C-alpha cells in the first residue's frame, strides 16, 4: 500500500511535535472582503467576530476598493474568466501587454513580464538570465522565494551580511573573475520592515560592474514620493537592472507578479523562465483590476501619504507604550517577542481583544526571533490604531513585556 499506517503515523508524530513545540500554524477564516474591519471565525466553528486587521499586505487599502472591483467585473465581461493556457501558446491577451506597458512606465524600466506571482518571478528569473560562469551575491535576509529561485540556478551563490555594504564590496572584489555578477536584495525586508540601502548598492554595482535585482514586493505602490518603490525612495530610478514585484499586496492584493527591467533581461525571461513557460497566464479579471490600481496610483498620492502617516503614528504609539519594535520607516512594524509560544499566546489574546494579528516564528523567521508582525494600511483610520494600541497595552501588561529588554523577555519566557 502506498500510504501505509506506518507512514501515516510517522507524519502524525511530526505534526504532533510541531504542536508541542508551539510551531503549529492555524488558519483563521475570514467572513468578509479584506479591509481594516473584518469578521473572523477562530477557532474553527466559532461564530465570526468583528476584529481590526493589523496583518494584511493591503497597504493602500485597495483590496476591496469599489473602483478596482468594478474594473475587475468589467474585465470578466470583456475578456472572460480564464485563458486555459500558458502565455506563449494562447494565453496572452491585449490587456496583458497593456498591463506590462503600464507597469514599465510606473516602475521606470524598459520592459516588464507578468508572472502568476512574484514567487514564480523569483523562481524563474535567475535561471533564465545566468549560467555557471556567473555569481549571485544576495543579502542574507532575502525573501524565501529568492532563496528558492537561487537554488534553481547554476550560477555560483554567495551572500553578504544583512545591509552590510563593506561586506558586499568584499564579495564583489572576490568575484571579479566571474562573467557576470548579480547583487540581489529585497527592497523592504519583509520580516523586519527595514529598507535596502539601494543607492549604495547601485554605486558599488557600478564600480564593480555588477547587475542589481531588487524584490520590491513590500514597496511597490507606496515607498517613494509617488509610490514607485525603493528605487524612487533611494534616488536610483532607471538604474536597477531587474525589479521583481507582486500585484498581490499593495497593488490590489489578488495575485500576479512580474519581472521589470532591462529589455534584454526581461526578454530572456520570456524565452526561458520556467514558471512563465509552464504555468497558467494571469487571469483577465486580475489584469483588469491591476490596470485600475495603477490608474488610481497615478492619479493621486493620497493613499501612500496616508499610509506613511499611519506607519509613523503606529510606531510612535508602540514605542511610547514600551514594546520592543524593529526601527524603520516602512509600514511593516514587528513587535519582538523572541519566544514562539509567547508570540502565539499574545496573538491569541489580542484576537480576544478584537485585534487580528498572527505570531511569526520558525521557520518563517529565524529561531528565537519570534514576533508579531503588524502591518499598516491606508484603510486604517486613527481610531483603528488607537483601539489597537489599547489592546496591545492590555495584553502587554498581562505578559509583563512592556518596557522590557530582549534579555528580560528571554529570561522569563526562554527561547
Amino acid at each position, binding site marked *: 500500500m502506498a500510504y501505509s499506517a506506518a507512514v501515516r503515523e510517522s507524519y502524525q508524530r511530526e505534526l504532533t511535535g510541531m504542536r508541542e513545540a508551539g510551531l503549529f500554524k492555524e488558519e483563521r477564516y475570514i467572513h468578509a472582503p479584506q479591509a481594516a474591519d473584518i469578521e473572523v471565525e477562530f477557532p474553527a466553528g466559532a461564530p465570526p467576530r468583528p476584529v481590526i486587521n493589523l496583518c494584511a499586505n493591503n497597504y493602500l487599502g485597495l483590496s476591496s476598493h469599489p473602483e478596482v472591483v468594478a474594473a475587475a467585473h468589467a474585465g470578466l465581461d470583456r475578456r472572460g474568466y480564464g485563458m486555459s493556457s500558458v502565455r506563449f501558446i494562447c494565453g496572452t491577451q491585449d490587456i496583458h501587454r497593456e498591463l506590462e506597458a503600464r507597469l514599465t512606465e510606473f516602475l521606470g524600466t524598459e520592459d516588464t513580464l507578468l508572472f502568476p506571482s512574484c514567487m514564480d518571478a523569483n523562481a524563474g528569473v535567475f535561471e533564465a538570465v545566468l549560467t555557471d560562469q556567473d555569481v549571485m551575491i544576495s543579502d*542574507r535576509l532575502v525573501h524565501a522565494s529568492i*532563496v528558492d529561485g*537561487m537554488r534553481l540556478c547554476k550560477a*555560483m*551563490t*554567495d551572500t553578504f551580511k*544583512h545591509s552590510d555594504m563593506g561586506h558586499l564590496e568584499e564579495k564583489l572584489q*572576490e568575484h571579479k573573475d566571474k562573467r557576470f555578477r548579480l547583487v540581489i536584495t529585497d527592497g523592504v525586508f519583509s520580516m523586519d520592515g527595514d529598507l535596502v540601502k539601494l543607492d549604495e548598492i547601485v554605486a558599488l554595482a557600478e564600480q564593480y560592474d555588477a547587475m542589481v535585482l531588487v524584490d520590491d514586493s513590500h514597496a511597490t505602490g507606496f515607498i517613494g514620493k509617488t509610490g514607485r518603490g525603493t528605487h524612487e525612495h533611494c534616488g536610483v530610478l532607471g538604474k536597477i537592472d531587474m525589479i521583481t514585484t507582486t500585484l498581490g499586496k499593495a497593488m490590489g492584493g489578488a495575485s500576479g507578479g512580474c519581472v521589470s527591467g532591462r529589455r534584454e533581461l526581461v526578454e530572456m525571461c520570456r524565452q526561458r523562465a520556467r514558471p512563465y513557460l509552464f504555468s497558467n497566464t494571469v487571469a483577465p479579471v486580475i489584469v483588469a483590476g491591476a490596470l485600475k490600481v495603477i490608474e488610481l496610483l497615478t492619479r493621486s498620492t493620497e493613499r501612500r501619504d496616508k499610509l506613511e502617516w499611519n506607519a509613523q503614528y503606529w510606531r510612535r504609539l508602540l514605542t511610547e507604550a514600551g514594546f520592543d519594535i524593529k526601527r524603520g520607516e516602512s509600514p511593516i512594524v514587528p513587535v519582538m517577542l523572541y519566544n514562539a509560544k509567547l508570540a502565539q499566546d499574545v496573538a491569541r489574546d489580542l484576537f480576544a481583544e478584537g485585534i487580528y494579528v498572527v505570531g511569526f516564528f520558525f521557520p518563517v523567521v529565524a529561531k528565537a526571533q519570534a514576533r508579531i508582525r503588524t502591518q499598516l494600511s491606508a484603510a486604517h483610520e486613527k481610531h483603528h490604531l488607537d483601539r489597537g494600541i489599547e489592546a496591545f497595552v492590555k495584553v502587554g501588561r498581562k505578559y509583563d513585556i512592556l518596557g522590557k529588554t530582549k534579555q528580560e523577555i528571554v529570561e522569563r519566557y526562554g527561547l
Partner: protein
Amino acid sequence: MDEVQRVIRDYVVKEYLEEGDDREITETTPLISGGIVDSFSMVSLKRFIERKYDIQIPDADASTAAFDNLASISALVERFRKPRA
C-alpha cells in the same frame, strides 16, 4: 583546538556572525545544521579553505556534513593536504 581549526573558526566568526553576536564556536559547534553558515555561504567557506591551504576539495566531498563543524572541516583539510599514494 588545532591551528587549522583556529584559522577556520576566526574566518567563521568574521564572515558569518553579525556584530554583537558573541556565541562561542567550538570544534563541534554545528555550523550549517546550527544555522550559522547557510548553504549558500558554504561555498565561500569552501573557497576560503581551498585558497588558504592550496587544496582542491572535490564537490562530492564538499557535503554539508563534512562542513558542519571545525573538527570535520580540519579533517577534510588534512585529507587533501596529504600527497596522493
